[in-house]
């Protein structure tokens, strides 16, 4: 866009330029919301060009452009109307940008690292989701490569909306994704990926001194990290005394346990005998009010209790086992976790901002040195407050959420690279508002969190136990139809010798043989000479007396010449290439496409014509011809039962061709179609 203030605008709704009816608009894009929004206020006079009603308007496409010297220099919004408020004397259109269509599209598929071409690469999966499952587009210039270090073994989309899945990927990568109306594409990139060249400077293009906000909400200057815990197993022995209410206290909080109880004396530290030597001594555990049926013991893993209970009538009928009297006859094997905590602080931050203490748990950190690296980095990024403000900016092109801008406020000694978290573009134009801050920037640079997110994404995918049912609809269209029926009539008058016939089969009377050469009368001295007199039918041949097309519609695909009148045709009826070809002034004529039936109306269609032809039809067997208006139901001028014929003549003194059309998914349209009624 030309440098300057973009005061010119063009707003198009449902393909109609409604710019002159715009009272105001506000286009907002916010980091956390992803889908951009626009609110446009129109004068009611918009009804002059666009009818607004309860049923008209919602889901209409909307575009907003603006510019300095031309109103179409830059698209700042492309999307659709979500709702219309009728507020006298105006309409307010609430719109969402085109990324919203990804919410409306559903996807059911899974991306397997070893099967699908995306190979588990998150950015590739993202691109496929957008390009294959929505009508939006993105490419390798708008979607950054997330690389092969961060991959997912399986990414499941189970009747999910595409936007949610894209959001999950972006969140896992800790990246941003958005729709850019100017390029009309979807973007996926690290936060702050692009550092814009425009410098936002108070007093230069920032028209007001901003109020800077310093937030201590997420300040940390003393951090305890509890890393991965290690499991340790231990065993406790105790004497049983055959009374109710026996318990065994544990020194650690148990994670799991086995309890063996035997009879008599055991010597685990001396002779080595233990109740667990006999598997029959293994007892069954349970939980009061949870376990149904009978069980022998329960344990309380409350860190303040850490106790195993046997039968105690004051607690209920279960557990129901009482250890008998014995020495070391109660053996409890249990497992507990050992944590590896690290604690560190930032004294300078504590002195400045007072202590801000917290504990993080990172199960993926398994040793102290990794824990120390994590703590150091966390304190580095979070021991200072986050800074943010909203700037009123003019004469700056293409402000983008998620992009980095150098922000200078000399009076407040601020010269920082900050990320734009919210942008508001307005009309009438006075300035654009851009909210900037460093919180997201610091999160982005805090890489360790990304691995955690990927791991969580995988864990969430892994939790799904549902089978993924892919329903792939493949439809075949097949037309099974009657092509035509015809009735052939053969008149046998003049023939003789039909055995069993009441007239032509009377013994001693009927004549056998062709009438033209005399008959054959069995036993006759003249007409019964073996080897000389002829027996059999005469010269009559069947005559077609009725022809009716399937569904009264003639469909000529030029597969054969059943209806080709070669005597009256000069053009070529080509059953190999399924076309009729004409040179200058040539004619093609059909034989009767209908016979014995009087029709009143006809409609003629030609599927595909190259060149110029005249089509004529006769409804009375060729006695009268009338010129056809294609694709129009027409009353026959003359019709009777002597037959319907079609004649096509080339009229431009050049070549012409009539052929079928072919639709690979469905069925063909015939070169010639005549519907008769």
């Amino acid at each position, binding site marked *: 866009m030309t440098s300057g203030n973009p005061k010119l605008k063009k707003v198009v709704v449902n393909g109609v330029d409604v710019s002159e009816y715009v009272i105001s608009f506000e286009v907002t894009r916010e980091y956390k919301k992803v889908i951009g929004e626009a609110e446009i206020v129109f004068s009611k006079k918009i009804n002059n060009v666009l009818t607004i009603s309860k049923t008209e308007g919602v889901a209409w496409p909307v575009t907003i452009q603006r510019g300095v010297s031309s109103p179409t220099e830059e698209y700042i919004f492309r999307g659709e109307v979500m709702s219309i408020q009728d507020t006298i004397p105006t309409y307010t259109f609430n719109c969402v940008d085109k990324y919203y269509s990804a919410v409306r599209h559903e996807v059911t598929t899974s991306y397997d690292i070893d099967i699908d071409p995306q190979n588990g690469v998150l950015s590739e999966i993202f691109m496929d989701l957008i390009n294959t499952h929505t009508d939006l587009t993105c490419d390798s210039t708008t979607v950054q490569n997330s690389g092969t270090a961060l991959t997912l073994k399986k990414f499941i989309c189970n009747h999910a909306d595409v936007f949610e899945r894209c959001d999950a990927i972006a969140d896992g990568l800790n990246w941003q994704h958005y729709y850019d109306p100017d390029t009309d594409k979807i973007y996926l990139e690290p936060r702050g990926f692009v550092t814009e060249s425009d410098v936002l400077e108070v007093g230069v293009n920032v028209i007001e001194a901003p109020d800077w906000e310093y937030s201590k909400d997420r300040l940390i200057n003393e951090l305890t990290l509890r890393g991965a815990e290690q499991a340790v197993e231990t065993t406790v022995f105790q004497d049983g005394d055959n009374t109710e209410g026996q318990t065994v206290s544990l020194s650690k909080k148990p994670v799991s346990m086995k309890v063996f109880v035997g009879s008599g004396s055991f010597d685990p530290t001396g002779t080595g005998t233990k109740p667990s030597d006999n598997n029959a001594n293994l007892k069954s555990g349970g939980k009061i009010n949870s376990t149904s049926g009978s069980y022998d013991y329960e344990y309380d893993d409350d860190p303040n209790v850490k106790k195993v209970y046997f039968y105690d009538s004051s607690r209920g009928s279960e557990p129901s086992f009482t250890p008998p009297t014995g020495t070391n006859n109660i053996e409890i094997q249990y497992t507990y976790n050992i944590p590896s905590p690290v604690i560190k602080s930032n004294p300078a931050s504590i002195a400045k901002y007072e202590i801000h203490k917290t504990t993080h748990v990172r199960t993926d950190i398994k040793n102290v040195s990794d824990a120390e690296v994590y703590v150091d980095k966390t304190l580095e990024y979070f021991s200072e407050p986050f800074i943010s403000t909203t700037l009123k900016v003019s004469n700056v092109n293409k402000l983008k959420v998620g992009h980095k801008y150098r922000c200078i406020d000399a009076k407040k000694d601020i010269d920082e690279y900050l990320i734009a978290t919210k942008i508001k573009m307005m009309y009438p134009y006075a300035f654009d508002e851009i909210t900037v801050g460093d919180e997201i920037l610091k999160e982005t640079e805090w890489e360790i969190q990304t691995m955690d997110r990927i791991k969580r994404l995988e864990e969430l995918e892994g939790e799904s136990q549902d089978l993924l049912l892919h329903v792939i609809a493949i439809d075949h269209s097949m037309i099974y*139809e*009657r092509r*035509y029926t015809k009735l052939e009539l053969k*008149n046998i008058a003049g023939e003789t010798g039909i055995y069993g016939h*009441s007239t032509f089969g009377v013994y001693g009377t009927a004549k056998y043989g062709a009438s033209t050469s005399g008959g054959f009368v069995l036993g006759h001295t003249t007409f019964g000479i073996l080897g000389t007199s002829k027996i059999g039918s005469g010269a009559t041949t069947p005559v077609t007396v009725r022809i*009716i097309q399937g569904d*009264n519609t003639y469909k000529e695909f030029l*597969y*054969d010449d059943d209806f080709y009148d070669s005597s009256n045709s000069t053009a070529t009826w080509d059953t190999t290439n399924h076309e009729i070809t004409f040179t200058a002034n040539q004619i093609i004529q059909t034989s009767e496409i209908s016979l014995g039936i009087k029709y009143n109306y006809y409609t003629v269609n030609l599927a595909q014509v190259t060149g110029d032809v005249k089509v004529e039809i006769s409804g009375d067997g060729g006695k009268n011809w009338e010129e056809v208006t294609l694709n129009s139901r027409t009353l026959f001028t003359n019709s009777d039962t002597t037959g319907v014929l079609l004649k096509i003549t080339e009229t431009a003194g050049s070549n012409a061709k009539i052929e079928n059309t072919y639709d690979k998914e469905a069925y063909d349209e015939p070169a010639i179609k005549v519907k008769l009624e």
Partner: protein
Amino acid sequence: MTGNIINKKGKNLALYRIYTANSDLSSTEYLAPTKFKIGVNNVEPLETDTDLTNPIPLSNGTINDDGSNQLTGSNGGDNTTDNTTTYKQGAGLTDNTSQNLKVNNTSATKTFTISDLSVNGTVINKDYYVGLFIYIKDSTTLDYFKSTGTAVEIKLGSDSSNYYSKTFEKSDLSTGWNWLYLGKLSDNTETGTVGTTIDTFIIEITTNNATDVWAEGDVIYDLLRSWQYSDTVDGFVSGYPSFDYTNNEVTIRCYIDSVTANGFFIDSVALVTEDTNPIMHSEAVITGESKSDTDEFAFVIKDRVR
């Protein structure tokens, strides 16, 4: 109205046969069409049709009365007389005789009876299909027939009080020969209780007035016949169906020789299966063509898939 379609059941069976494994194909249902039947007075075909409107016998069936035997007149009807000029061919008959339904002015109900078909013909099986011909000379004669309500009633039973009957209105009739088709006899209205021997045949014509009388020969009856389903169907010509796998078309040829289906104005042909309950696969209704003993008919039927 004319038409030429594959019926819904025909499409059902095609679908069934395409997608059912060979070993799972039924031997009694949804078989391929292998027979044809013909009919008269067919209405415009609809996809939902399951039979022709009036199928006619291809084979002779049973001649219950060949039309050469007198019917006894009563009420406004007189005893019938022979007519050797205007008669119906068909069913392999050679009598060449029909009966003039003579009338008098004593009653608007003109009754004609054969009380024992077995004397000169054959008794009727109630499970058979039944039909006969009535000839009406011209519109003047037709106008004598009762304008509304029952104009003709055909009764077949064990006597005049116990019979199956079917009524026809004037709108069902036309000048010239009329084929009165009763369908399966036992499906018709039963009056009383019909005995096992169905030998009584009554034609009852009701005119508008008792004084409505016509000249001898203006109304004629011929050929009472009955048949079974198997008499209405025949196979295709040998070598058919013929398949064109290049253009995905099939051709079927149905032949009716000069001794078959004579005396009818044939206007419909259907392809049917040999299921336990036969299915009509398709039907074509054309402008009728009369069939006599000098005619051979061949229906050529082409279907395609695309």
